[in-house]
């Protein structure tokens, strides 16, 4: 059809949207995607969720996280970092995805859930991961890059591996975002204060396609989550492809190959 003015075009689009919203509102909420990602993770009751929120708030004094109502795979959207905590030379991402759940499960009866956010700073793409467990949670936001060498967008993109000691379960969690060709992850850790090194090997898990699409995450993103007994320092992480060739070596969480 020809000859419409801008207002008529917008009315047409608005009507189509309103009809779609009405149809969508009548539709039962989809849960299949979340169920697929939940794995063996258990659901938290209201009291449990309140405990989780309280614990997360304590663990994240600098970056409080709000637990919001969940749709299919949307993860809680952290509030913006307060301006006074933002570095003076902060680099604002040109684009940021919506946090989505990229994995869930249980380890030694402790339920965990992993969410991811993509930030793009020009040609640099960083993925921030956040692990939630009943005792709290930790991870990285991807919107606090600065121009400092250790906090630049490039450094943020290389910081693929995170660790978190959960005082409630007494476990150390190592988790990370990996490239598409990653298949296995080898984690070397030592007890806090020193002791014998321990090496654990775990599979790199492909992220559900729906989560990648909704979160605008890098295509074929893989992740891993490893639970270690007790408080441990993660000294070294290597990532191998399907031929067992090392493709990433990470020291102190930074994976610079």
């Amino acid at each position, binding site marked *: 059809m*020809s000859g419409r003015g801008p207002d008529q075009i917008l009315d047409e689009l608005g009507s189509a949207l309103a009809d779609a919203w009405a149809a969508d509102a009548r539709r039962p909420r989809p849960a299949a995607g979340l169920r697929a990602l939940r794995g063996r993770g258990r659901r938290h009751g209201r009291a449990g969720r309140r405990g989780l929120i309280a614990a997360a708030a304590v663990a994240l004094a600098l970056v409080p996280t709000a637990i919001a109502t969940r749709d299919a795979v949307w993860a809680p959207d952290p509030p913006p970092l307060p301006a006074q905590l933002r570095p003076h030379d902060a680099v604002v991402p040109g684009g940021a995805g919506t946090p989505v759940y990229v994995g869930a499960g249980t380890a030694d009866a402790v339920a965990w859930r992993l969410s991811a956010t993509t930030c793009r700073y020009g040609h640099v793409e960083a993925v921030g991961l956040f692990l939630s467990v009943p005792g709290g949670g930790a991870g990285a936001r991807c919107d606090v890059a600065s121009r400092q060498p250790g906090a630049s967008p490039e450094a943020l993109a290389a910081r693929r591996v995170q660790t978190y000691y959960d005082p409630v379960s007494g476990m150390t969690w190592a988790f990370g975002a990996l490239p598409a060709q990653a298949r296995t992850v080898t984690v070397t850790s030592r007890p806090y204060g020193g002791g014998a090194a321990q090496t654990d090997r775990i599979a790199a898990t492909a992220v559900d396609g729906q989560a990648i699409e909704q979160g605008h995450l890098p295509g074929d993103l893989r992740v891993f989550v490893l639970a270690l007994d007790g408080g441990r320092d993660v000294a070294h992480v290597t990532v191998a492809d399907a031929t067992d060739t090392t493709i990433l070596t990470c020291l102190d969480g930074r994976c610079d190959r």
Partner: protein
Amino acid sequence: MARAPLDQQLLAAAYRRDARRLLVWLTRRTYDAQQAVDLVGETYARAWESRRRFSGDPADADALAAWTWGIARHVLADALRRGHAERAALQRLHVEPPQLAADELARLEELAELGSLRATLAVALEDLSPEQRDAVRLRVIEELDYAAIARRLAISEDAVRARVSRGLRTLATAMEAGGAA
């Protein structure tokens, strides 16, 4: 008193208030009226999908507009990076944006006052790489379509779109300073 959630009626009212302004804003940043219409649709489709995360007062028109603009910025950044409009949320809702005829595109460009921006762009173009400058000049100044530019430069249409998008993104700062808001 409990605050009402952002529902269909409130979002539709926001659309009626803000969509025209958003369309102009997007047209002035993409120089592509059809893409701008698609992006308006994608913005409100995403707003619908993430309505439960709107933490402000849905009756506050300014707060709702600011939130919508935040979504639009992400939608625009995605489009400039990819070289075409992301329409995933629209597709999930099974909404097909209106397809515009040539005269309708011209009216939208007139609404967005693209003509006055072209003069500013012509100066700012000097900051671009030669490849991006040629693509943006042919698309924005000479108003050729992508197929014609592809033939002129002997590259694919996708490559043209990518050069134009990246060039426009580079120019965005200059245009903001030049009062293109």
